[in-house]
């Protein structure tokens, strides 16, 4: 019965002449396309740079000044931090509708623990961060262990956390002045570094600690996602959880850790929020969900999981920030700005898709 396989045997004696297609030589455009394809976050970056250039030309120094540009950074800081949390979850093919609620509840916990119970502010902050992680853990447990769809889990948790927030805080605001005198640590992320202001202290580049935290967070997450085993597992789980499980990833543990980390980041966002608005207000953050998801999607992260980078999300958030401020400065009124941002969301993604298509 062996003779039929002789035709196969013959082959193996053949020397290992390695078959190799000729590399296709291309010009600059080709190499650029290839680069874009390999680094998807380049695409939103290009859109961002183009947007800044266009608004810079249209508006001149009013827009293209250190003051206005760093203002955008400040305005997107909260959305960016929450967007980082959202990115992690979306990379696992989930979605987190409760990010805004977790953020607000955490900030309320920090505030109330300090002012209502008189705890040292450091302890209160730690409790707030713990609270965020706990909310994240519940999300993660329901998604990973109970195998419920993330959308519905976080939709439910959104309502639960928000209602808890209102019930617990009794809708009471803690005023900025009180915080500044009694617990300035809560406003830590609001501290501003100003570079190059005029004598009166106006203009110049303003970096709040919140902005610096955002940038550091995005860089750290980029490193973790690219360079550690945990990061690869996050991508694998988002890509195909069944295949990941079969090839040795602890899918449940990875999912729970992602949701917990997301909750923790949201709690940091809550802290940064106190820095930004000065006060602790239980009604903030209602739009954080939709804004963070917008940033993530414009940033090129696939809602089906496994593809995209946190850096892209940051550019996505900045694109929205640039358009919002740019359009307002151009004199568009609030409703028109709203409409144009809608158009530009679609246009930004269309450009992105177009570039990707060309490079394929």
């Amino acid at each position, binding site marked *: 019965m062996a003779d039929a396989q002789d035709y196969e045997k013959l082959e193996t004696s053949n020397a290992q002449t390695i078959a190799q297609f000729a590399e296709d030589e291309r010009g600059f455009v080709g190499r650029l396309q290839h680069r874009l394809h390999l680094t998807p976050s380049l695409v939103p970056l290009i859109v961002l740079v183009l947007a800044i250039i266009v608004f810079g030309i249209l508006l001149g120094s009013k*827009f293209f000044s250190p003051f206005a540009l760093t203002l955008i950074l400040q305005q997107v800081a909260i959305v960016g931090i929450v967007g980082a949390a959202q990115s992690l979850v979306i990379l696992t093919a989930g979605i987190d509708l409760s990010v805004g609620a977790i953020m607000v509840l955490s900030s309320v916990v920090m505030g109330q623990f300090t002012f209502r119970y008189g705890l040292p502010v450091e302890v209160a902050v730690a409790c707030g961060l713990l609270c965020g992680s706990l909310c994240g853990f519940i999300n993660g447990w329901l998604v990973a262990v109970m195998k419920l769809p993330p959308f519905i889990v976080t939709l439910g948790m959104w309502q639960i956390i928000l209602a808890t927030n209102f019930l617990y805080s009794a809708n009471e605001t803690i005023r900025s002045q009180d915080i500044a005198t009694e617990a300035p640590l809560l406003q830590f992320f609001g501290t*501003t570094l100003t570079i190059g202001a005029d004598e009166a202290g106006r203009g110049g580049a303003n970096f709040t600690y919140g902005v610096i935290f955002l940038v550091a967070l995005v860089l750290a997450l980029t490193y973790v996602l690219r360079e550690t085993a945990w990061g690869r597992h996050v991508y694998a789980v988002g890509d195909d959880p069944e295949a990941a499980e079969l090839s040795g990833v602890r899918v449940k543990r990875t999912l729970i850790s992602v949701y917990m980390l997301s909750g923790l980041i949201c709690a940091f966002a809550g802290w940064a*929020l106190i820095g930004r*608005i000065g006060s602790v*207000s239980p009604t903030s953050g209602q739009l954080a969900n939709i804004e963070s998801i917008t940033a993530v999607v414009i940033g090129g992260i696939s809602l089906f999981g496994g593809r995209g980078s946190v850096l892209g999300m940051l550019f996505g958030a900045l694109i929205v920030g640039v358009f919002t*401020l740019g359009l307002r400065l151009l004199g568009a009124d*609030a409703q028109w700005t709203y409409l144009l941002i809608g158009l530009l969301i679609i246009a930004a993604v269309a450009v992105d898709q177009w570039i990707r298509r060309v490079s394929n």
Partner: protein
Amino acid sequence: ASHSVSTCLITKTDTNPFFVKMREGAAAKAEELGVELKTFAGKIDGDHETQVAAIETCIADGAKGILITASDSSSIVSSVQQARDAGLLVIALDTPLTPIDAADATFATDNFLAGELIGKWAAASLGADAASAKIGLLNLGVSQPTVGVLRNQGFLQGFGIELGNPNKWGDETDPRIVGNDVTAGTEEGGRKAMENLLAKDSEINMVYTINEPSAAGAYEALKSIGRENDVLIVSVDGGCPGVQNVADGVIGATSQQYPLLMASKGIEAIAAWAKDGTKPTFSEGKNFFDTGVALVTDKPAEGIESISVKEGMDKCWG
């Protein structure tokens, strides 16, 4: 105690401290009079359908009367009619229905007057500078809810700016107006809107805000660039943190409203109606019961009646 009389309170949202206090006022009064109270609210400002559903629920529940702050003052009318047809007493709180007689009674503040008071005060405080003021207007939302429009237009009228369509903000042509932006009535929105306007013109020196949280947010934006002392902020509401902010110099003046009063009066009226069928009466010369509005400031301007911050603190809510 078993409550024989049941009432409903339907507010626009139950997260805004204004409505929270209204609910507390109603609850306290209901407790006192031995009336059962159920509270309802829209999920967001402008959430009209939930209010319609709430009215239906109250009818199904066999309530004697409804207190409502309508999200959409004219759309709610047919539902209100349905409730009245089913034998319920309906009282509009804070926001009059259109037409106003669609409800059995209205206990409200005059929001236009509230705006006008701070407008006049601001013009008087700025004195000669009023003619060259640079004004930023921080409104509620792009859907232009009535309350927001009334306060905004009242402020402009009081300040001496010619109105365009009085039912709409944003169509004024006065060059002193730097721009309008929306805040959703929160600190966050207030700060962002203020930043946007500052980027447009950093010389703004007069800011109108829809409520005190957005005023606090605007103040943070000014503070971050060191201009908190050369800009005058005015606001409306009269909540305790807001009045405290007037004391601290964050806000120049605010128009104070009395939600607790509205709610407790409303509960009293329904209790009376349930007892012997008496209907509430109106304030003199008005087609509604005015629960009043007062300008709160420690820097009174000539010719404009105001109360001191201390007095304001005594009457404040939330």
